[in-house]
């Protein structure tokens, strides 16, 4: 596994909860969501990834979508979080706190003193 491959797998894994977190704040349409995720920086490998993910979250009952037409604009499909989505997100937040703390702990503990950082590995 290359470092990049590992990161893109990781991105793919956390993208769902990130989408849920954005939708928890307010309902958004596709491009709006893509832009907010992109502005967070480093989360999206490509914009298109978001759409199959949205469909999957919708099928899993975590997100709903509906057509809305704002005055003077074309009709857009808006995505909103469901109660199940909120529960799922809350559970992920708890797990993520523990998980990221664990990962950070392991990474920092095994870091070798100056000069050998790029060769760091578990003993």
């Amino acid at each position, binding site marked *: 596994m290359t470092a990049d491959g590992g990161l893109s797998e990781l991105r793919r894994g956390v993208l769902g909860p990130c989408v849920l977190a954005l939708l928890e704040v307010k309902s958004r349409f*596709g491009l709006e969501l893509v832009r907010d995720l992109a502005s967070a920086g480093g989360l999206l490998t490509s914009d*298109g990834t978001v759409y199959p993910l949205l469909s999957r979250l919708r*099928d*899993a009952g975590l997100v709903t979508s509906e057509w809305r037409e704002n005055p003077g604009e074309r009709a857009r499909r808006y995505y909103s979080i469901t109660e*199940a989505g909120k529960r*799922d997100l809350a559970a992920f937040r708890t797990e993520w706190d523990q998980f990221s703390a664990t990962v950070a702990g392991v990474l920092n503990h095994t870091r070798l003193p100056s000069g050998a950082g790029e060769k760091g590995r578990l003993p």
Partner: protein
Amino acid sequence: MSRTSSGHELVRDYIRQLDAALRGVPAAAARELMEQITAHLDDALPADADDAQVAAVLSRLGPPAELAADARRADARRADAGLPGAPAVARLRYRLARVRRRTWSVAGMIVVLTGIAAGYLSYFLTPGSLEFGGASGWWYPQDYSSAVTTTADGRSETTVPLRSGDRQGYFVTIDNPTGVTQTILGAAYGPDVPWDSPGSAVVQIAVSLPDRNIGRGGTSRSARFTLPGVIPPGQTRMVRVLWTSDICLAVGTVSIDTLALRVRVGWFTRTEIIPLGQAWAVTANRHARCT
């Protein structure tokens, strides 16, 4: 929806490639992704976007093949029963989305064929009954010469003496006013059938072969009879009803004012009860011979 972006050559190319790459993805999922992507492009691109802007937006969107692979992966993940939170409706929608187009078209074909069969059934089950054609008479000369016609309460009855042990009977013209051929198979019997036979339990039915005179509403004693008898749509035939009068009537009258027939229409055989417009009666006096 795609009035702005789809006009651009690069966008059209991208959409075409995506469409090709989505082959094999369940139809509903592919349709949804296509709708999401075109909406994304419509929102992301101003109407007067130049090539550089379009190329930048498309490159951020990612290669079509990668998008399709994502969609396929998302679909596979949905296929895992690992959707504990998924409501039943979502699961059902997912299953339906995976039904192939061919399956839908086969289902459609079955629906159409069932419809045709149902149409055929209703076509042959709904047509009306045969009707009394207006002309009638006693069949044997000794009966029609001695017939007495009475009219009471707007109902006419033609009565002849019972000739016990002999054959007696009448003929009537029968119209087929319906659009389908009806075939008379014989007399109908049964608890629901009003057969007041003044004679033998078995009544002999016969239907005339085509005869111009009968077709014009008249009768013909030279007509030839057969059974089963076919009456094509809109045509008229003579129907002869004979029985052997062998009941023992002390004093009294048996009258018949309906004709109950077994009739085949298409695939179906049914009982038709035809009002005759008048009654045919035999009457016995005290001299009638009882056998």
